């Protein structure tokens, strides 16, 4: 059939025989892609009198927007908090490997480290689009060092810092540069945190509350100054108490500024959070739930000892602890495992589980107009899943960048 498209001559691919996630529902619709973006077939038909050049039968797969991981510390032997000579090839390796987990965009995360590490590593991280080379990088997530000693978790105590002297200038001096930083996790009860939160928010950096002993009013004040995220809810914060719910209380707080939503990361690997707690959080505030892996260098590798920044961690199955202790330190769960576990534990719909890993992180970072959905004109980053939510193929900008081969590897 002749295609006399008036807007562009680029080839149009029509993915048929599939169910796509659109408007919060799985719909039996075809997905049309042109020049790396989702195309509106109605406009193509009537305005351009065009039609597709290639039709691909997706064999009844589920098509979902690609997953976005906003907290991942490394994987496959690579540790983002280690200033090695081959750091760049390390980040390239991880970004390529996570395609098979369905992650099409991520925020490489650095745990609490000495300033020298930040000064060496951050300039080597650049925001870039994904493709056959790997998932896209949205910017770094700096988790620490401005966190609470009491809730340091696996972070090294000798590297913790405060910004009570110079507030934002202290933070800038520690990190060196904020050019490619997307998220900063800090403890809001620290003195002068409000100023810091405001400065970071002004620069478009998402401020997250975590590794903190803040009470609810301190947390609410932080949100009023611009904080929008909670780092791995329940972990490294005061437990929920009925007279002072602490940071957890943000999920149902009535002091959130109008029009804003507080998002919260959940590591749904079955270990960091008891399924009952996961359900409580999900039911209290379903639209704010963001699935994260918090994956460490050992993810994708055999059990044994690996590093996490300045610490040594031990992996045993899905459990990862600081060597010789019972302190959890990151996880080795993959993003697609987290999505499946989340869906099973909460009994939520497939759509809800998929959105927690795609739409919600995109909304958190304010990029939902181009990522996290299959809306027209969005970036064509998507996955083909089977009914059990296992990734069969990963696409970035409309190109297939990973495929499950027949042997199931």
């Amino acid at each position, binding site marked *: 059939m002749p295609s006399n498209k008036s807007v562009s001559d680029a080839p149009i691919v029509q993915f048929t025989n599939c169910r796509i996630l659109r408007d919060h529902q799985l719909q039996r619709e075809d997905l049309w892609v042109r020049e790396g973006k989702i195309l509106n077939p109605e406009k*193509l038909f*009537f305005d351009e*009198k065009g039609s597709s050049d290639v039709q691909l039968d997706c064999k009844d797969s589920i098509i979902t927007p690609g997953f976005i991981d906003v907290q991942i510390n490394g994987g496959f032997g690579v540790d983002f908090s280690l200033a090695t000579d081959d750091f760049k090839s390390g980040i390239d390796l991880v970004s390529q490997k996570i395609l098979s987990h369905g992650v099409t965009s991520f925020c490489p995360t650095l745990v609490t480290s000495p300033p020298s590490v930040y000064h060496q590593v951050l300039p080597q991280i650049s925001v870039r689009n994904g493709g056959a080379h790997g998932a896209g990088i949205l910017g770094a997530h700096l988790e620490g060092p401005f966190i609470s000693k009491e809730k340091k978790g696996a972070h090294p105590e000798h590297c913790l810092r405060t910004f009570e002297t110079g507030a934002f200038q202290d933070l800038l001096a520690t990190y060196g540069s904020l050019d490619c930083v997307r998220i900063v996790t800090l403890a809001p009860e620290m003195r002068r945190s409000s100023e810091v939160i405001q400065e970071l928010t002004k620069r478009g950096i998402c401020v997250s509350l975590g590794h903190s002993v803040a009470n609810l009013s301190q947390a609410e004040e932080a949100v009023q100054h611009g904080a929008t995220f909670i780092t791995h809810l329940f972990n490294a914060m005061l437990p929920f108490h009925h007279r002072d719910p602490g940071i957890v209380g943000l999920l149902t707080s009535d002091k959130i500024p109008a029009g804003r939503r507080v998002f919260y990361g959940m590591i749904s690997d079955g270990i960091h959070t008891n399924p009952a707690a996961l359900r409580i959080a999900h039911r209290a505030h379903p639209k704010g739930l963001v699935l994260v892996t918090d994956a460490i260098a050992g993810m994708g590798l055999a059990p044994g000892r690996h590093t996490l920044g300045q610490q040594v961690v031990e992996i045993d199955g899905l459990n990862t602890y600081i060597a010789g202790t019972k302190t959890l330190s990151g996880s080795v769960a993959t993003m697609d495992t987290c999505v499946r576990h989340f869906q099973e534990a909460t009994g939520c719909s497939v759509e809800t589980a998929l959105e927690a890993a795609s739409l919600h992180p995109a909304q958190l970072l304010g990029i939902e107009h181009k990522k996290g959905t299959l809306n027209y004109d969005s970036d064509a980053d998507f996955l083909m899943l089977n009914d059990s939510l296992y990734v069969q193929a990963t696409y970035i900008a409309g190109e297939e960048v990973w495929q499950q081969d027949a042997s199931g590897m």
Partner: protein
Amino acid sequence: MKLIILENYSQASEWAAKYIRNRIVQFGPGPGRFFTLGLPTGLPRDHPESYHSFMWNNFFKHIDIAPENVHILDGNAPDLQAECDAFEEKIKAAGGIELFVGGIGPDGHIAFNEPGSSLVSRTRVKTLAMDTILANARFFDGDLSKVPTMALTVGVGTVMDAREVMILITGAHKAFALYKAIEDGVNHMWTVSAFQQHPNTVFVCDEDATLELKVKTVKYFKGLMLVHNKLVEPLYSMKEMGAERSQSKKPYSD
């Protein structure tokens, strides 16, 4: 005419779909040989419930029609009458309408040919009757002031020129219109009645739509269903037709 009476909306829809499918397959369309399907016009373009969206979602996206073979009257055209005249020319250029499929309004109108429309009218701008505006209000959140008051429509005469006409009528609220269309005389107040003078008309309806007809009429046509069902069984496919064409089936007519 053939009056096909099915039990309910789904069955009537299915019968009509099968009939249209068989007609297209038996016609044997191909390059340069168009099966021209005529349909009534609808709402203006830029509304989310627009006719274009409706047609795309309910028809075009499910079939492999080439976009250049789709002609929809443009309600936003600068010169509406010229748009209508051009539409008539396009119909001629495509070889005339092979089959026109339409519904009937509660006031007996075909397309937007409201009561009082000339029975020999052509494609033109029509002011809509209050009944039609009320019926369309549901597409505009019930706000009457938002409903368009004018529409472009094919004329009664335009439809009469089609080689075959199929009218779909379901629901009790259409029963009186159906009665007026087929049991009363030809009258410009019930424009569908014009098809009494068309050589090849099929009315497909459900039981509820027959509520105002004479028992005798209903029994007569129900009695013909055995014969009428031969039009939809067997269901032909384009692949088979290649082989069958050599056996030269004559199209059934009454």
